[in-house]
């Protein structure tokens, strides 16, 4: 890893990191980028492992979507994160793509990012000056831009320990059933008390603003409730209100605002069920 960060730091031209390559190769092929250096991090041991750490998980930067889906403990603890990662592209793409790549592309529509933000995930960044850890939501700064500095590589993603009675879910809207980019994405993570009252919640939205949005008002709508109709209505309204979307080839502004609320409501109910809520 040290070697990799040094190479990247020294390169004077355009340098890119290759993990799964499912986005990088498309950009290469279309002539969108013309790199002087490509560093393949797949062969760095630490990037390929999913490890249990302090009751949570450390997911290496080059772990593929397919590998996430095959990790029984991870799926059990963070089903929403895994289902989000498994929605990226086709089965073919799943064999290569990584959550870290999804994050570093800094697309507002990246599927795994709202789920990671809802999960309060952090990233470990290796760089010429050592390592640092920051929350996932601080990585993308604008479409296609991240807060990573020259020579820095995201080494792994950290998912925290799950309190009992917790659940998460991710839903996205696409026009087809597969192979599309999210028009709207919603990640929800909740923790319940033994009576089924929400004690903690995080809600994140994708594809409705220049970066993925963490929506504290939406979480507030759920906390202290049993997710009755009025709480879900408030959640939907908070999500719709937080959207700052654009009209584009994938959907209209109005559509995104409306559907963000609809999906938030649906995702919250799935998360609640996964947390053991009745």
């Amino acid at each position, binding site marked *: 890893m040290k070697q990799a960060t040094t190479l990247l730091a020294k390169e004077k031209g355009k340098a890119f990191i290759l993990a799964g390559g499912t986005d990088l190769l498309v950009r290469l092929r*279309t*002539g969108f980028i013309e790199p002087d250096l490509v560093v393949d991090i797949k062969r760095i041991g630490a990037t390929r492992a999913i490890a249990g750490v302090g009751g949570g998980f450390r997911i290496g930067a080059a772990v593929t979507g397919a590998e996430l889906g095959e990790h029984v403990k991870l799926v059990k603890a963070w089903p929403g994160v895994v289902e989000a990662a498994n929605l990226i592209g086709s089965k073919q793409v799943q064999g290569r793509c990584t959550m870290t790549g999804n994050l570093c592309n800094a697309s507002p529509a990246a599927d795994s990012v709202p789920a990671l933000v809802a999960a309060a995930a952090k990233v470990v960044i290796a760089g010429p000056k050592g390592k640092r850890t920051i929350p996932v939501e601080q990585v993308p700064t604008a479409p296609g831009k991240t807060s990573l500095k020259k020579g820095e590589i995201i080494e792994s993603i950290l998912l925290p320990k799950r309190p009992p009675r917790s659940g998460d879910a991710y839903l996205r*809207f696409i*026009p*087809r*059933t*597969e*192979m*599309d*980019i999210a*028009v709207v994405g919603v990640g929800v993570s909740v923790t319940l008390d033994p009576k089924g009252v929400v004690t903690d919640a995080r809600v994140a939205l994708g594809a409705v603003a220049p970066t993925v949005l963490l929506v504290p008002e939406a979480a507030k709508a759920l906390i202290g409730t049993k997710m009755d109709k009025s709480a879900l209505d408030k959640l939907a309204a908070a999500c719709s209100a937080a959207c700052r979307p654009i009209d*584009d*080839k*994938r*959907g*209209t502004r*109005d*559509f995104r605002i*409306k*559907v963000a609320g*609809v*999906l938030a409501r649906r995702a919250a109910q799935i998360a609640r069920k996964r947390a053991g809520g009745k």
Partner: protein
Amino acid sequence: MPLDSTQPSKRDFSVVGTRPLRPDGIDKVTGRAKFGADATAPGMLVGRILRSPHAHARIKKIDTRKAEKLPGVKAIVTREDFPDHTNGDALLYDVLYNIMAREKALYEGHAVAAVAAVDARTAREALKLIKIDYEVLPHVTDVDEAMKPGAPILHSTIFTDGVEPKPKKPSNIVRRYEFGHGDVAAGFKQADIVVERTFKTEATHQGYIEPHACLANAGPDGQAELWVCTQGHFMVRDTCARLLGMDISKLRVTASEIGGGFGGKTTVFIEPVALALSRKANRPVKVVMSRDEVFKASGPTSSTSIDVKIGVKKDGRIVAADATLRYQGGAFAGSPVEFGAMTAFACYDLENVRAVGYDVVTNRPKQAAYRAPGAPMSAFAVESVIEELAGKLGMTPIDFRIKNAAREGTHSSYGPTYGPVGLLATLEKAKQHPHFKAPLGPNQGRGMACGFWFNFGGQTCVSLNVNNDGTVALSVGTPDIGGSRASMCLMAAEELGIPYDKVRAIVADTSSLGYNDVTDGSRVTFSTGMATIHAARAAIKKLCARAAQIWGIPEEAVTWEKGYAKPAGPNAGNFPPLSIAEIAAQAGATGGPIAGHHEYSADGAGVSFATHIVDAEVDPETGATKIVRYTVLQDAGKAVHPSYVEGQFQGGAVQGIGWALNEEYIYGKDGRLQNAGFLDYRIPVCSDLPMIDTVILEIPNPGHPYGVRGVGETSIVPPLAAIANSVSAAAGVRMTSLPMSPPRILAALERQAMKRAAE
């Protein structure tokens, strides 16, 4: 006129109608089949095309000097390398202009220069070094905008044809068409109920998975060869030869296996460019389009804007039908609006009918044929109004259609009087189908629609050679796009009375056969099939003559039965039957090789009709649509290979599902295509779909010895309307714009809710 007088309906078939394995099957499941891009040649160069980034721009200057100096660049061609050999043929001039821009670039993606280099990287670099001085002009991509006075004009040479008096000012309206009969205005006066609506459809692409590809090899002696994926290699040969000023005899074209076409490979794009590059470099040049180029620079179909007005009496009889259709066909004349207007009301028996069509040019790629060109859009508009009228009359949509359906003897809306046709049969079968009675779930709706297509005949030439062991080599000139070689083998085997696997069919190159029209218009099983039958009959005649010679009896005294020559009767003599193998074995001694040929312009292609039934489910909160059940009922005349007939029904239906729900060309304000890739041009994926049930009806076409009708295109005519009708039923709001994408459905639902709240 029927070429054959036998009664097709009474025939018992031995192999036609069975489902044998296709002869090209093993190659296609093992990766060995050679498609367009799979060809290579020693010393081959890579050809790449530079394309206009502007929707409309005058090309003031092209400077290739820097690119020429790049090591590894072997040839560069621009408009200067394509002098006009078209001799006033306006349609051919459009093709010339389309393959390489001349004074103006007329759409984003229009070819402006091309390079042949030693490798892809060098070719790419060279393209960047070509300097083009553009004067960007105002552009127009929408059909209705392009028709308005004051719209940017593409061609100063277009003065609308078909209107009196002929306009003195140029416009984007190429031509006005009108079809129909009776008195429409008088008809509407009798009507108790009239429904009038305006519809819009977006442009869609054929979406074949194989991009255009060819390998050209031209030399300084003026001779050339071309290996290409195309629906018609004779068309490619003749067009390229004429564009490049070559003798047709000096260009030999071989059709590769073809990875889908659906009409999109019935013209030339890269082929003349590859030949010009090869000629200039004096080396083989391969040109393969990228997917992005396929979307931007090959031919999608038209986007349209259509008004339909239909009036009925209370008893459900249609008294008048009127439509105005506006189709943009991209930067050149030739949108399929003529077919759209002809087919619009072809399903109905009408006294007063009119369809007016306008062919319009815009700054988009030149349209190419797409499966039943022009018909799905007009069927969408008409069948939507039909469904709505049925509702207003309180009739079931199927009974309303049965009451007004075209039948034998109907004076069709486009002119001819129908012979035996299958529309009523598909409707009556549909009415009995379990799908029609099945219960619907929540948020689900059912819709149906009918569709019509002419089917084509065309020039065809087939050669059938009997080998020395009695097996048969069949050469056809129509590229096999969906299993036609299997159907040809079946028909040859049927006629000769030999097993299917004793016949092998190939698609021969352009030097081996006379001219064949392209594989289009659902014509191959009909035309090439009929030519194959006649070629087999010619061979049988010769086989009988050889048997007669062997037996020493007159030719007329020999008949052919199930693969054997037999004396015609007891008077002819008592000889044991001679098999085709036995006769063939003696061919050398009895007069040489035995072959049958047939060449003709096929006539008598029977029209075909289909009825589709669709159940759709609409999520009222998101506008997402799911097709939950789909049934196709279509008249095939006679299904030669039923599996491939079903495949045509299913494929057409699913292309229709894509068109109806998600597929569209999306243009930005800059006139550039925003979704030139399979990620955002959303053709249906496997998980989007239900099984597609099929019912094959066989109402024999009197114009074919076995009763065959073309089947490939009719199946895409009803889906747009059938799906629109089912979605409208499920959502509770009439959808009049395609695609019915989720944002459009949700917006329609909201408009409806607001309207209801206001009432």
